[in-house]
C-alpha cells in the first residue's frame, strides 16, 4: 500500500470516527430534515432572494456582480483589482472552478493561498484533493521536504513546526496585501449578510486587512434568513470537520471604512442544475462528508476522483460547471454502493442521480469494452441464445422454475431468485436456496425470471430498468410476501415496492434454532444494506448464528457488480482492506452474491458463504 493511500485512508477514517462521536446522542434525522427543507425552499426562491439581497448590499456600499460564466467573473475581478500586486486568498472551491488564481497570476500578480492546506499544495503546484482538506494526501514528511527545499529551512516532519513556519511566512503577506479574495458559504437575503466559515482565521485576515475585498460565491449559496442558515451551518461544520462550530464564522454587511467590497455571484451551470432533473444535487454544501466515507475516495484520493469536485457528487457538479467528458470519467469511479448517502447532511440521493447522469453519457471506450466483454461472457454462461451483453435488456423468464408473468397464484409467498444465482459460480448457493424453499417455505412459488433491473438502473439504462420493474410489479402482484436471497435486489425492490419485499435470510431466522460453530463466523455487511430495514440483518441472523466481532465487517469489499472489471486495481485495493488479521479457519457470511464472489477472491471459496446456504447447512447438521 503506498504512502499516498495510507495518508488519505487514515485522515478520512479519523474524520468519520470523530463525526460519529459528535453526532452520538443527537437527533440527526430531524436536524437534517429541517436543514434540507430550509435549503430546498431557499433554492426554489433563489431569483427573488438574490434580487432582495443584491439591492440591500448595493445600498450598503457593496458592489454586486452576477457572472454567467467563470470567464466573465475572472474578467470583472481583474478589472476591479486595478494595480493590486499582492493578493491574499482564502480557500474557495468556486474560485478553483474559475481557475481564478491562475488567471490573476498570468497578469503577473502574486496570489497567495492562505489556508494552510491550500498554501501547501500551491507550493507543490498541485490541485486540492478534498473539498475541505486540500492537502489530505500529504504526510508531514512531504510538507517538510517542500518547505525545506523551497524556503531553505531545516524543519522536522512535525505539524507544529511546519505550521509555525507558515504563520510567520503568511503574516507578512496579510499585512502587506493589496487585495483579499475569499469564498462565501452562505448569503443571507434578509438582512443581506455574507457568511464565511473557517478554523484558521485566514478568512478573517484576508478579508479585513487589505483595501479591496472580493467575495466569490455560487448562485446556489443563497438563503432566505438567518434561521435558514443556522441549521445548515451547524451541519456543515459537523459534517466537514466534526465540529459543532468552526472557530470563526465571519459576517459581512458593509465595507469597513478603509475598504472597497465586491460580491461576485457565479452561475456557471448552477441555475441549469437547479432547474434540471438533477436539482437535488444543488443542495450540496461542499462539506465533503461523502468523500470521507467513500471506499473509492479513501483509496485513490481526490486527484484521481475529480479535478475540483470529487466523488460521486463531484461527477454531477462537474457535469454542470465543467464538461461531460470529465464528469463521465469521475462517474465511472463511483461504485454505486450508496455508502455516501447516509453521510450526506443534505440527503442527496447521489447514486440515483449518477444513474440518471450515466443515462445521458456513453462510457469512454476503454471503460465500456471490458464491461461489454463481461456481459458477453455472462450471457454465454447463462446459455442464452442471443449474445445480449450486460447492457442489453434483462433476460426474460428463466428455466425450470419459471413463472410466466400471466400466471396468477393463490399462494401468498414467492421467492424471487435473481440473476446472480444463475451464474455457474453460484451453482451451490442456488441449490441451497432451492433446498431452503423446499424445506422451510414449501408453499412458496419460485420466481426465476432473471434480473431485478438494478444493474441497468445504476448503469444508467433507465428505460430497461423501468421496463423490468413493470414486469416485476405484475409478477409479484398476487403475492403478499416476496423473499429475495440477494441483498442488493432486496434493497432495490424494497425501495420501490415496500414492505412486501423481504430478505430471505431474515425470514429464515424464525424457522431455525441457534447453531454454534466451532470456528469463528464473521458477518460481511453489503453496502446496499447500510440503510433501510436491511441494516437489521446482522441482528436478526444473530438469533441463529453467533458472529465473532470483525473490525472490517461494514467495510466495502469493492465488488460493485462489474466494478472489479471496470477498475480492477481500485477494486482490489478496496478489497485488501478486508484482509488484515484474518487467519486460520473461519467463515464469512453475507447475503450479497456479488460481495460473495469478490470476497472469495482473497479468502477462498471455502471461507465465504451465502447466508441462506450457511443457515441451511447449519440446520441440516
Amino acid at each position, binding site marked *: 500500500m503506498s504512502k499516498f493511500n495510507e495518508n488519505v485512508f*487514515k485522515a478520512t477514517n*479519523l474524520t468519520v470516527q470523530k463525526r460519529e462521536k459528535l453526532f452520538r446522542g443527537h437527533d440527526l434525522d430531524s436536524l437534517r430534515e429541517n436543514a434540507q427543507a430550509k435549503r430546498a425552499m431557499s433554492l426554489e426562491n433563489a431569483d427573488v432572494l438574490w434580487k432582495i439581497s443584491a439591492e440591500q448590499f448595493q445600498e450598503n456600499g457593496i458592489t454586486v456582480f452576477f457572472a454567467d460564466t467563470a470567464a466573465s467573473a475572472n474578467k470583472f475581478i481583474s478589472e476591479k483589482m486595478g494595480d493590486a500586486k499582492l493578493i491574499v486568498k482564502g480557500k474557495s472551491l468556486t474560485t478553483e472552478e474559475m481557475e481564478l488564481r491562475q488567471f490573476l497570476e498570468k497578469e503577473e500578480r502574486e496570489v497567495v493561498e492562505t489556508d*494552510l492546506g491550500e498554501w501547501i499544495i500551491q507550493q507543490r503546484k498541485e490541485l486540492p484533493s478534498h473539498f475541505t482538506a486540500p492537502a489530505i494526501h500529504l504526510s508531514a514528511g512531504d510538507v517538510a521536504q517542500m518547505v525545506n527545499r523551497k524556503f531553505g529551512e531545516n524543519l522536522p516532519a512535525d505539524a507544529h513546526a511546519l505550521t509555525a513556519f507558515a504563520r510567520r511566512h503568511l503574516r507578512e503577506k496579510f499585512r502587506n496585501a493589496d487585495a483579499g479574495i475569499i469564498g462565501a458559504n452562505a448569503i443571507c437575503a434578509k438582512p443581506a449578510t455574507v457568511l464565511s466559515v473557517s478554523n*484558521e482565521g485566514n478568512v478573517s485576515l484576508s478579508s479585513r486587512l487589505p483595501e479591496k475585498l472580493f467575495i466569490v460565491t455560487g448562485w446556489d449559496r443563497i438563503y432566505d434568513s438567518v434561521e435558514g442558515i443556522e441549521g445548515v451551518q451547524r451541519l456543515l461544520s459537523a459534517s466537514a470537520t466534526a465540529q459543532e462550530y468552526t472557530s470563526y464564522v465571519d459576517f459581512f454587511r458593509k465595507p469597513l471604512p478603509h475598504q472597497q467590497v465586491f460580491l461576485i455571484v457565479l452561475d456557471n451551470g448552477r441555475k441549469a442544475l437547479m432547474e434540471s432533473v438533477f436539482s437535488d444535487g444543488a443542495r450540496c454544501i461542499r462539506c465533503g462528508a461523502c468523500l470521507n466515507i467513500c471506499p473509492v475516495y479513501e483509496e485513490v484520493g481526490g486527484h484521481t476522483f475529480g479535478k475540483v469536485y470529487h466523488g460521486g457528487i463531484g461527477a454531477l457538479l462537474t457535469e454542470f460547471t465543467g464538461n461531460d467528458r470529465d464528469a463521465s470519467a469521475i462517474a465511472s469511479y463511483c461504485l454505486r454502493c450508496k455508502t455516501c448517502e447516509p453521510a450526506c447532511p443534505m440527503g442527496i440521493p447521489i447514486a440515483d442521480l449518477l444513474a440518471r447522469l450515466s443515462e445521458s453519457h456513453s462510457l469512454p471506450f476503454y471503460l465500456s469494452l471490458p464491461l461489454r466483454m463481461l456481459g458477453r461472457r455472462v450471457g454465454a454462461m447463462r446459455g442464452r441464445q442471443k449474445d445480449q451483453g450486460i447492457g442489453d435488456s434483462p433476460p426474460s423468464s428463466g428455466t425450470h422454475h419459471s413463472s410466466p408473468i400471466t400466471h396468477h397464484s393463490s399462494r401468498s409467498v414467492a421467492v424471487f431468485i435473481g440473476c446472480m444465482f444463475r451464474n455457474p459460480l453460484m451453482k451451490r448457493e442456488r441449490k441451497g436456496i432451492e433446498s431452503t424453499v423446499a424445506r422451510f417455505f414449501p408453499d412458496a412459488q419460485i420466481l426465476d425470471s432473471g434480473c431485478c433491473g438494478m444493474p441497468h438502473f445504476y448503469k444508467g439504462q433507465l428505460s430497461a430498468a423501468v421496463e423490468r420493474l413493470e414486469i416485476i410489479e405484475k409478477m409479484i402482484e398476487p403475492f403478499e410476501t416476496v423473499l429475495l436471497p440477494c441483498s442488493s435486489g432486496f434493497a432495490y425492490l424494497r425501495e420501490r415496492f415496500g414492505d412486501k419485499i423481504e430478505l430471505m435470510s431474515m425470514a429464515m431466522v424464525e424457522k431455525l434454532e441457534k447453531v454454534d460453530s466451532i470456528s469463528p463466523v464473521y458477518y460481511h455487511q453489503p453496502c446496499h444494506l447500510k440503510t433501510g430495514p436491511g441494516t437489521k440483518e446482522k441482528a436478526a441472523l444473530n438469533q441463529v448464528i453467533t458472529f465473532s466481532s470483525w473490525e472490517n465487517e461494514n467495510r466495502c469489499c469493492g465488488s460493485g457488480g462489474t466494478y472489479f472489471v471496470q477498475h480492477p486495481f481500485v477494486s482490489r485495493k478496496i478489497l485488501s482492506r478486508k484482509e488484515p488479521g484474518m487467519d486460520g479457519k473461519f467463515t464469512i457470511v453475507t447475503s450479497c452474491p456479488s460481495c460473495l464472489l469478490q470476497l472469495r477472491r482473497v479468502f477462498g471459496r471455502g471461507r465465504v458463504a451465502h447466508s441462506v446456504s450457511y443457515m441451511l447447512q447449519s440446520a441440516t447438521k
Partner: protein
Amino acid sequence: MATEWHQALQSQLDDFIEKLKDRFQRQSISIVESLGFVPGAGAFVSIGSRSDAEELFLSEVVIILCRNQLETYEASLAGEFSQACFVSAESKTADIEKKLVSGVHGPKECIFVEVQ
C-alpha cells in the same frame, strides 16, 4: 473598542491577567468586547475597522469579554453591524496529517470571560 463599561472592569481584568501572567509571558494579548455570547458556543464580536480586526486576529492570546447572554446563535445576528465574527475557539488547523495545531494564523489561545 473601549467603553465606559470596559474601563470600569479594567482593574478586575488586570488582576485576572496578573494571575495568568506566567502563561502569557512574552505573548501579545488583546482584550475585546463582544456584542453577546451563546453559552457553550462562542461570542459575537463586531468588527468596525481594520484595527478591530488586528486586535481580534493578530494577537497570540485574545480575551473576549462576554456580557450579554444570547439564547441562540441567530439572535447574535439581529443587531446592526458592518462586519462581525462569531468566535468559538482559537485559530487552529488539522491540515497536516489531521494533527490539531493552534495558532495557525490568529490567536493561539482564546479566553472567554463571562462578566456577570
